[in-house]
């Protein structure tokens, strides 16, 4: 735990006692545990005794303790909430897929995910001052990510003295100046979501910050040169690009004309998704990519892109690949408002995308880029400043969302769109925002059900 911090409640003390043993559960002297957790002898001995009686700790000779048999049961951890309705309603699919199928769709081992970084050098006493140099708040997703960060900031308020934010309006020069401001204000750690992946100026600035001893963590968008970063919190853009392309190609039975509507030109997620989609489409010789355009991840950008392609004399395509619903909504609305048959689409994120696609029965696949990474990056920042090892790259999971009946040979749903959509939420809601979304939900306290019986 951070030096000098006194836990305020027994629940905090319990969490920290259970967290103070090494990987092999080597015994520790009682006085050492009390010192590390920051407990007085009177409180500490009572709590340790109670935990020992209940089996959470066990006594080893010479007044030492280690984690007890009950603590071993804490390892039983489901890594995701299981949509228990999904298995029983999924259509029968072949159990054994061919080897080609296995690699075709899903296998995407990435060694970078398994590298960890020791952060002892950055350990300091709480509370911390954290700065966030944000690229912009230019669309709903970015606002949702920021809300998710704020949620985590509130949750960890006792460990955060100041959370300073600058917003650069997607301008690299402005962001460089703002990073200077944040560093000069005495921050302990810098969070950054870069304006542009191709800015050497930004690369140099972040390198300078890192060299000065301030740890730098990127979220969502990273600089071209990652050497300044302790960690990068993101989601698999490759998964988003590849699986959405595979679904679209399989939906079209391997043949058809595609328009590709990417997000913001120069932004690293847009580049990676597009590249992965190209790779996915290239496995289908009958798929012809007729147009590749950018939309700034806005509804207006999506609408204008489609309008422009029609103005150029193109016939309506068989499928429209969008790397996000942020622009996908604009594309969908263009077809709907002009009473044209709506081709198959890809792209999630925005609640309006789900509402429109489901209401108009448009075939689509969605992989929400998780705005909840905002909260995750704050947790990573706190771990770094507490001297805990962190992953070099953190990927927040990206589930596959499909309407019922829209699965293909390679792409199956993690959850159904009909369950994922927030009919009670505004169209601008970002469904992957995580717990911070609950303020928007009208019922506040939502679903309960049985699981892992």
């Amino acid at each position, binding site marked *: 735990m951070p030096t000098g911090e006194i836990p305020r409640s027994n629940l*905090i003390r319990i969490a920290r006692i259970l967290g103070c043993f090494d990987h092999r559960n080597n015994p520790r002297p009682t006085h050492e545990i009390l010192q590390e957790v920051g407990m007085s002898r009177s409180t500490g001995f009572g709590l340790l005794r109670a935990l020992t009686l*209940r089996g959470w700790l066990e006594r080893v000779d010479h007044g030492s303790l280690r984690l007890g048999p009950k603590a071993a049961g804490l390892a039983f951890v489901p890594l*995701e*909430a299981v949509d228990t309705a999904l298995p029983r309603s999924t259509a029968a699919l072949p159990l054994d897929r061919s080897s080609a199928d296995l690699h075709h769709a899903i296998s995407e081992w990435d060694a970078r995910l398994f590298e960890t970084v020791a952060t002892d050098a950055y350990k300091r006493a709480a509370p911390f001052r954290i700065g966030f140099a944000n690229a912009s708040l230019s669309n709903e997703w970015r606002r949702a990510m920021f809300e998710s960060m704020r949620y985590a900031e509130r949750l960890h308020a006792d460990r955060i003295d100041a959370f300073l934010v600058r917003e650069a309006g997607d301008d690299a020069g402005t962001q460089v100046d703002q990073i200077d401001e944040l560093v000069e204000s005495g921050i302990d750690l810098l969070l950054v979501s870069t304006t542009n992946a191709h800015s050497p100026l930004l690369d140099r600035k972040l390198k300078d910050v890192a060299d000065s001893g301030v740890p730098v963590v990127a979220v969502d968008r990273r600089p071209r040169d990652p050497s300044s970063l302790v960690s990068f919190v993101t989601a698999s853009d490759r998964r988003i690009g590849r699986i959405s392309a595979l679904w679209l190609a399989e939906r079209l039975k391997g043949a058809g004309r595609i328009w590709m509507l990417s997000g913001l030109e120069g932004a690293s997620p847009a580049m990676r998704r597009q590249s992965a989609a190209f790779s996915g489409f290239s496995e289908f010789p009958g798929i012809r990519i007729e147009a590749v355009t950018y939309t700034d991840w806005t509804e207006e950008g999506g609408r204008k892109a489609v309008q422009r392609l029609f103005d150029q004399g193109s016939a309506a395509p068989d499928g429209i690949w969008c790397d996000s619903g942020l622009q996908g909504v604009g594309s969908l609305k263009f077809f709907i408002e002009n009473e044209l048959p709506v081709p198959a689409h890809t792209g999630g994120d925005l609640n309006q995308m789900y509402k429109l696609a489901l209401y108009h029965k448009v075939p689509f696949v969605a992989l929400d880029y998780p705005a909840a990474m905002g909260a995750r990056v704050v947790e990573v920042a706190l771990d770094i400043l507490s001297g805990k*090892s962190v992953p070099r790259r953190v*990927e927040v999971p990206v589930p596959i969302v499909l309407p019922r009946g829209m699965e293909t040979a390679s792409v199956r749903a993690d959850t159904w769109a009909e369950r994922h959509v927030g009919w009670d939420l505004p169209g601008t809601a970002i469904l992957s925002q995580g*717990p911070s979304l609950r303020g928007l939900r009208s019922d506040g306290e939502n679903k309960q059900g049985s699981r892992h019986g």
Partner: protein
Amino acid sequence: MDKTGTPYDKAIDTFEGLVEKPLEKIVSGPLPLARAVGLATTSGYRAVAIAESEGLLSRSTEGVYLRGPSTLAAGLSALGFGEFALVAEPVLIQLRQSTRLTAFLGVLSDGACAIGPFSSGRGITFVSPQRHYSLLTPASFDADRLAEVSLAHQFEAVAAQRAVISSVSDRQDRLCIVGVLLPGTREEAGNELRSELVRAADLLCSHSEKPE
């Protein structure tokens, strides 16, 4: 009998309720969780917030409460394999995505298999594991190879679950394994599944701490 009659008992009751309830039911929202644990509104809200802040609980993107990273780290440390706490999640999620089967980390000891973190399969390959199994066949597991095994519920002698497992690390009388649970109708594990499992095991092995 196992209580001290002090205020610490209540704190431990709260702790136990908060880390157990998410395994029993899907709960989203701090108040429903506090109520499910039997806590009063104000103190319950605060307890849930503290548990999330301390990493005892986490929340999915849909707001559903899960056991958190501190819980996993303490559990794996208690089993003697705490070094896998940071990498278990990405490895198991990748393994589940590539095989579409429930992927898990477990610890074998004296013929018993304690299930650790797991990522559940989807569709008809969905299997929700039990916390503990007995290793039925083979009776002993060669730590150097990958094996298809039958698991029984504790204290029972009938196979309840088949799995393919690979060893990751051994420590005294315990063996850490990574595996996938085979749904009942599946014939046998194919080569592709085996190679994905070996890949996961190799990645975890690279994080295994060497003996002191």
